């Protein structure tokens, strides 16, 4: 299917793009995605944006304790979800990846149950918001410690390889994460093993307030692949189709036994780092204005409109449907019971160890 795209060149200094800012196809190969898929990709990005806006509202109204907005990161995230094989491949995302889990098929109810700390959270409301996970979708439940999910991602990929399961792993992380020892230990092991895994860096050139040039001396993240003997691809992270084609190729290469790859998607963080952050302290409004003009959703919409696949009416209708779905989920959550106190003591181990049984008994009386 993507036979004619099999020749993306690694370590290209210019980011790979297939759509111009005005939504024209500029790739040296032909588009291979069908209309439905193109529309779905767009819808996923749009729904994710709406979800992000809803997150922020929920946080401001006290229903979520925390949010790390993903606006500006939708393209690689949605592309990643489409590039892997749902329910077969594994995803090891990070906290900012709700466009990815949503596009992969995580239900809004499940997502909101986690982010609002509800009794309906399949993870039993054990973690703060922004920690997705799903057994059926093979979405690994991460920890907050930056980059700490990457070694487990590599372990899963090694397991796939030695057992020849034909699966692949995709793991994502920010530019800041690449400074951690865990990133290095993990990607180096993957390189040595030729493990079937794709490393996706969503490079927004900020780690909270820390600028990319204080994060590393390299010009790109993609070039770091050289240290691990794998290809590194620089992609325009505001171009969802470019992200898709590159990631798809990497996933298929992984599955075909060609080993791991590192993909750097150059994205822009439209919001503050999180609801606990005030980004006006370290960047200007003008900077942000310029960024917003490169909105990945706008670019894809222009493309779809030029293809005759999308319209204002379609947009309106989809937004309405999506908001309704959010509301329905929130209504369900509003009716849920409180998180049981006794959940605090479960799942530390498979069984309730004696000392925990004692602590539970003493506490609950």
């Amino acid at each position, binding site marked *: 299917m993507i036979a004619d795209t099999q020749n993306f060149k690694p370590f290209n200094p210019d980011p790979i793009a297939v759509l111009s800012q005005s939504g024209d196809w500029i790739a040296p190969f032909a588009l291979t995605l069908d209309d439905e898929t193109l529309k779905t990709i767009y819808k996923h990005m749009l729904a994710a944006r709406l979800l992000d806006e809803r997150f922020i509202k929920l946080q401001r109204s006290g229903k979520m*304790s*925390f949010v790390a907005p993903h606006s500006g990161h939708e393209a690689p995230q949605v592309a990643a979800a489409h590039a892997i094989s749902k329910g077969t491949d594994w995803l090891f995302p990070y906290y900012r990846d709700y466009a990815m889990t949503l596009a992969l098929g995580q239900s809004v109810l499940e997502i909101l149950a986690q982010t609002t*700390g509800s009794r309906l959270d399949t993870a*039993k*409301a*054990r*973690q*703060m918001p922004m*920690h997705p996970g799903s057994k059926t979708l093979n979405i690994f439940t991460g*920890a*907050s*410690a*930056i*980059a*700490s999910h990457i070694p487990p991602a590599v372990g899963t990929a090694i397991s796939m390889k030695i057992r020849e399961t034909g699966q692949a792993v995709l793991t994502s992380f920010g530019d*800041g*994460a690449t*400074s*951690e*020892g*865990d990133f290095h230990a993990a990607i180096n092991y993957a390189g040595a093993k030729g493990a079937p895994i794709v490393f996706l860096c969503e490079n927004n050139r900020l*780690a*909270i*307030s*820390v*600028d990319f040039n*204080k*994060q*590393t001396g390299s010009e790109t993240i993609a070039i770091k692949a050289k240290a691990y003997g794998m290809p590194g691809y620089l992609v325009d992270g505001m171009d969802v189709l470019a992200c898709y084609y590159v990631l798809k190729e990497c996933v298929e290469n992984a599955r075909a036994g060609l080993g791991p790859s590192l993909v750097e998607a150059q994205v822009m963080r439209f919001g503050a780092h999180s609801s*606990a*952050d005030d980004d006006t*302290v*370290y960047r200007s409004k003008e900077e942000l204005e310029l960024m917003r003009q490169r909105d990945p959703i706008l670019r894809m919409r222009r493309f779809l409109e030029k293809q005759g696949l999308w319209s204002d009416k379609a947009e309106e209708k989809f937004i309405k449907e999506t908001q309704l779905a959010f509301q329905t989920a929130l209504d369900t959550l509003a009716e849920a019971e409180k*998180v049981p*106190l006794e*959940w*605090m*003591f479960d799942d*530390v181990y498979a069984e309730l160890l004696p*000392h*925990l049984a004692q*602590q539970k008994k003493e*506490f609950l009386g």
Partner: protein
Amino acid sequence: MQTIVQTVARTLAEEMRRDDRVVVMGEDVGKRGGVFLATEGLFDQFGPDRVMDTPLSEAAIIGAAVGMAVHGLRPVAEIQFADYIFPGFDQLVSQAAKLRYRSGGIFHAPMVVRMPAGGGVKGGHHHSQNPESHFIHTPGLKVVYPSTPTDIKGLLKTAIRDEDPVIFMEPKRLYRAIKEDVPEDIEFTIPLGQAKVLRQGTDLVLISYGGSMAETSKAAEELAKQQISAELIDLRSLMPWDKETVLKSVARLGRVVLVSESPHTLNFMSEVSATICEEILDSLLAPPIRVTGFDTPYPYAQDREYLPGPNRILRAVQKVLEY
């Protein structure tokens, strides 16, 4: 009147003015002023060479601080949350803690590692932990965990002027909860290893430190209302810790409740309890009881319930009094 977090920033500024070897480093400590604003204003005052944003690596932060200290600087490193010490834990254990010993004293690492710690802020697993046991069990590290703006000032100054690595834990849920007048003297220091008796009592001793001082004080007040007189001690310093003060009070009253929010098993209060039993067993009128966090990861939904709150402390007090 100033809060704990304001006191941190002001104390750092004072020490940086006093001694130009003092540098501040960590994630977001520069322009951003730290995610809790504990380094607010420093970047503007002292510039990028003395207030350094680092890459996102705790190993790099701790390890580089060791190298700076060895070369003559006095680094004060911030770990954004105590929970994130673990990626840098080997640098702490293998480098910072053992350098003086392994080199026979020819090298040493005078440095401070500051970190906000403790629960009750809806931070879940990784923005709530109290890893002090790990530090205290590591010979070569000094550990303090003050609970008031004044103690923060006095102990942070002492830590910065100390010749050894000092882990400086800050009770983050009290960052803005308490305001008090803080001594203005730039030479105001508090020695490590001195507990503070906050309240004299006649019925039992309540001992705590760090964030849990708030709940423990509340419990003491509640007891006072019930005509029960608790002697209240804030340990402040955990390595070295003030055994003398603790033993004196406990020997006098014979009853003690030990409060600390880190997980129960090998909580620092296990050490305090074992020491009390070893040294003054015969003075005990009741078993020392520990009121602690549970042996679970820090939960999100039960953020408050996990903590040893006033009710759990009062129940323990009752047990100790009725024994």
